[in-house]
């Protein structure tokens, strides 16, 4: 079951000190500093912040909801809440933790409202596929993407949520635990289960590709 956390960003978080990709995103100027500047009326700071996180958040919601229109609605809802709550924003945690906690809660709220756990996805993974030079490689990649997409879709919501937070938001286990409202071991367990299932799906795709070759 996915836990629901309040939207407040004042919760003290034990963030790691050496975050590779996230640290790169937080440098000069930091997300929190940009948010504070926006709170003080600097719209350009918000645009910088938005451009930094919008695509990852969009993909996170898209994979999580498995429905494009719903993902866009939630995406707009999340940023609307960020904008409205700028006066109450306190940089007690990383901005990404704050942002994805809002997104996570919006998704949980959406689930409660629509009861659409079993809704079908309308995402076409091939629309955004990169070009492949080799036909065999391209066939293998496409098969792997389809298998991964199907396996990701079949993951339980909790495992998919953890996996997407790890991949899209580049969060540590502690941050994932903070966003999802579970302890670190639970988050780690969920991530392990998700990765194993996806790895099996990709392995099967690779085996199928080898066999067909």
């Amino acid at each position, binding site marked *: 079951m996915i836990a629901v956390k309040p939207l407040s960003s004042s919760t003290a978080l034990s963030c*790691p*000190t*050496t*975050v*590779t*990709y*996230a640290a790169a995103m937080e440098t000069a100027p930091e997300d929190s500093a940009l948010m504070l500047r*926006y*709170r*003080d*009326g*600097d*719209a350009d700071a*918000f*645009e910088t912040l*938005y451009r930094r996180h*919008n*695509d990852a*958040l*969009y*993909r996170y919601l*898209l*994979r999580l909801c498995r429905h494009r229109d719903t993902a*866009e609605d939630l*995406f*707009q809802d999340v*940023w*609307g809440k960020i*904008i*409205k709550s*700028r*006066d109450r924003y306190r940089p007690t945690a990383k901005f990404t933790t704050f942002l994805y906690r809002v997104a996570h809660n919006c998704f949980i709220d959406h689930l409660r409202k629509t009861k659409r756990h079993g809704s079908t996805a309308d995402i076409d*993974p091939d629309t*955004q*596929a*990169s070009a492949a030079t080799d036909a065999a490689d391209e066939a293998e*990649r496409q098969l*792997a*993407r389809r298998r*991964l*997409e199907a396996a*990701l879709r079949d993951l339980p919501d909790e495992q998919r949520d953890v996996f997407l937070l*790890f*991949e*899209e938001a*580049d*969060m*540590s*286990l*502690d941050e994932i635990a903070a966003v999802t409202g579970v302890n*670190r071991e639970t988050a*780690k367990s969920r*991530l*392990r289960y998700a*990765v194993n299932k*996806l*790895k099996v799906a*990709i392995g099967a795709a690779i085996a199928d590709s080898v066999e067909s070759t």
Partner: protein
Amino acid sequence: MTTERNTGQAEDVTDDRVSEVYRDLAGERAPASLNERILRDARARAGSGYSWWMGWLRPAAWVATVGLCLAIVIELTNTPVADIEQDDVPAARAPVAPGVASERSDEQLIRDAETSHDELRQQQPALKSEADGVAVNASGLATPAAPPRDERAEFPGRTTASAAEPKASANGNFFEVNDAPILEDAAEMAEMREGPGQDRVRQNALRSVAERADVNPAEECDDDVRSAPESWIECILDIERRGGNADDERNRLQDAFPDAELP
């Protein structure tokens, strides 16, 4: 292959192949229309709501409150004490039980009484002798002339007209008290010294004046009588018939009606 990404906390959990395929899969970008809508909304709200000066609202409110309190304290501290005591005098003169008046009110009352007493002595020293003369006149030893009415009007110790001119009813006649200002001031001083509720002292003093005035017929004529020479002459004759001195009234009659025939 399992990798250690994100500070090593996720070791033995993630898989490079899975991440690579996912990165290849997840190339979606947020729609431009959505980006534009959100950024427009953010810009519209950037100017409203919180601004830099709002952070100073709470400190400013505290400073204003403290300043107001200080101003009130300073204003109360700089208020002259005399003004406050002057406001307290009427309250001190209000009738209360003897011995209840505060110490400061007693001191103030005694000070006022002594001041008025000194002024009385300095400005009208002869008034006492006249009062003594009135007493002597009442006993029949002498008949001093009553002080002119105008002089008594200028007497500084007088406070109220009704108290300055007490008229006692004795034997059906009204008598004008000549030394009323002195007695009135004496009664007032007694009231001040001994506190409120001492009206009995005042009444006794006035009663003694009335008793003395009872045997001392009025030697002045009323203003109504003075309005006509005939009635005025009749009044003068009446004074003289009672054994009083009507010279002053004669002089006044001459001044007012020089053509009147003096008796």
